[in-house]
């Protein structure tokens, strides 16, 4: 039996699955136009492709296909109280995209979704309308996470969606957006006017953890370069040292990381810094453990004691960042 393992995979985005209902939506047309070589498959509902049972997440990650769909109501979801949204009383998230371009071993999406093929919901205007209604009903600013189940900036070369969200934030002073990312693609939105209610957050980890666990994600310096450009342009920037992964001698790795990060970025200009240990719901954990038997995260003791966390991470951050700007995830909630 002959096979060529190097070239056996179809090119990423070789197929675009398109719901009939949004086949003529301008965002669909534009997206399809940008991938003329892709095979277009028209479907009734994205769930028929995305939710199929027994899909192989890891193989799909090697050759992801796009799914274009119409998001049905509800468009806006409340955050669990466990998510700890810092100073905001009310926090919600929207899902313009399901799934991520990167393949991080510690990501809960592996346990949450059957498929590694990202779903792009093209009807973001309906999400925005519902957000406006929620904002009007709220007497305090509403925190909105845009990248809770995706990495929107990393997918920007495909989705081209962020300029619309940034424009919407300009019209919505009572909404405070966060776009969390591991990408270095700030240039994709560099032309946009910075919005003080649109927070760009970079998830950071030492390069040894990025190499081992954050497959396909840019290295630390790429992210720092992007964050520095965003700060220089006037965007509010958050840094997320989250999750902290206890690899061997993690204490030294993170001390070196903090030094490198705050030698590169002016800590005083940051909006804030968040941190928290590796954590995951037990259902997702068990599912991923089964899917990824090669991943140490799910087989070795990965718990950091509170004392160690405080001594290394909290005190480490305090050397560079004022304490009032450090937001720590607390497991007691």
């Amino acid at each position: 039996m002959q096979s060529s393992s190097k070239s056996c995979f179809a090119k990423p985005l070789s197929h675009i699955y398109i719901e009939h209902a949004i086949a003529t939506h301008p965002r669909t047309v534009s997206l399809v136009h940008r991938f003329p070589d892709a095979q277009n498959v028209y479907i009734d509902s994205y769930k028929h492709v995305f939710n199929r049972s027994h899909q192989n997440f890891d193989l799909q990650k090697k050759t992801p296909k796009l799914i274009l769909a119409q998001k049905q109501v509800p468009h806006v979801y409340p955050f669990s109280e466990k998510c700890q949204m810092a100073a905001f009383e009310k926090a919600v998230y929207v899902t313009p995209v399901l799934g991520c371009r990167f393949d991080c071993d510690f990501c809960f999406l592996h346990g949450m979704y059957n498929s590694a093929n990202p779903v792009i919901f093209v009807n973001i205007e309906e999400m925005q309308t519902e957000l406006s209604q929620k904002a009007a009903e709220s007497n305090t600013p509403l925190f909105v996470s845009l990248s809770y189940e995706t990495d929107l900036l990393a997918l920007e070369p495909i989705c081209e969606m962020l300029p619309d969200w940034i424009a919407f934030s300009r019209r919505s002073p009572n909404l405070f957006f966060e776009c969390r990312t591991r990408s270095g693609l700030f240039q994709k939105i560099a032309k946009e006017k910075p919005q003080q209610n649109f927070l760009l957050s970079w998830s950071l980890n030492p390069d040894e953890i990025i190499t081992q666990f954050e497959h396909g994600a840019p290295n630390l310096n790429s992210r720092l370069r992007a964050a520095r450009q965003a700060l220089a342009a006037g965007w509010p920037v958050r840094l997320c040292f989250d999750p902290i992964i206890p690899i061997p001698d993690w204490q030294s790795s993170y001390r070196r990381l903090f030094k490198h990060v705050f030698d590169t970025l002016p800590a005083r200009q940051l909006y804030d810094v968040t941190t928290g240990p590796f954590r995951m719901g037990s259902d997702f954990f068990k599912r991923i453990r089964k899917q990824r038997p090669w991943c140490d995260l799910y087989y070795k003791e990965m718990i950091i004691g509170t004392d160690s966390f405080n001594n290394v991470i909290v005190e480490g951050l305090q050397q560079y960042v004022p304490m009032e700007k450090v937001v720590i995830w607390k497991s007691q909630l």
Partner: protein
Amino acid sequence: MTAIRQILFIAALPFEAASVRRHLDMAPSNGVLSAFTNPPYHLVVSGVGKAHAAAATGALCSQFDPDAIGAVVNIGVAGAVSDAIPIGSTWLINQIHDAATARSYYPDMLATHQLNETQVTTFDRPVSSTVNAPKGGLVDMEASAFFEAASMFVGPEKIICVKVVSDVLQHPPRISTKQMSAAIESAMPNILTVVHNSCACIAQNPAMSLNESHHEYMAGISKALRLTRTQQIQLHQAVTRFIHMHPSTPLPAFIPQQIKSSRERNHCFAELQQELLR
């Protein structure tokens, strides 16, 4: 380390199967169904219609450990809805629609290939006019049932459906069985490219990298220790993890012991598990 995986073909009619048989030099094998084999290739002739396709697919798949299956391939002729699709052309199916249930099925299109792609709609009865036909693609009488039956054994990344166009609904009659058989045979190199590339993709998934000796190792331990189903799954995970983390190290030796109680079994299994997960 990669095992040679079994490749299972299901064809409805003898003349469809004949092309596969000839190309892969298969010999008849014993059994109730008309079947042929030349390992790792296996072929069964199902007969026409959904029930036959489902039964034959299930019967063939059930003969193998799902991990040992590389691909389950439905190969056969289909009608084209419009004459935009030429008679004798070969198509890789990316969407299967069942006309009776309105359900749709999607093989994972992981592998690179040189075939054109389209969708097929499966009908319970022969479709002779365009009255009830779908707007495009092909029509057949087996694909949806084949897919549903194969899905009971393997994931969508291992299910492949290939159709050769025998006729166009608007313009009967069809070409002769001899011509169709020749068309399938000439398409076999491209079909096998899809199948082999698909198997090569699957082999790159570390979770599927167990070979026959690993399965024998696990079966021996399961039998000796009389492992529960949960423990068997845990053993599978631990072995997969071990061969990924220590690719050049042999699996830890297991010396069968006489197990007198479930407590002893659990203790013995825990020790082995600990060694595998080091």
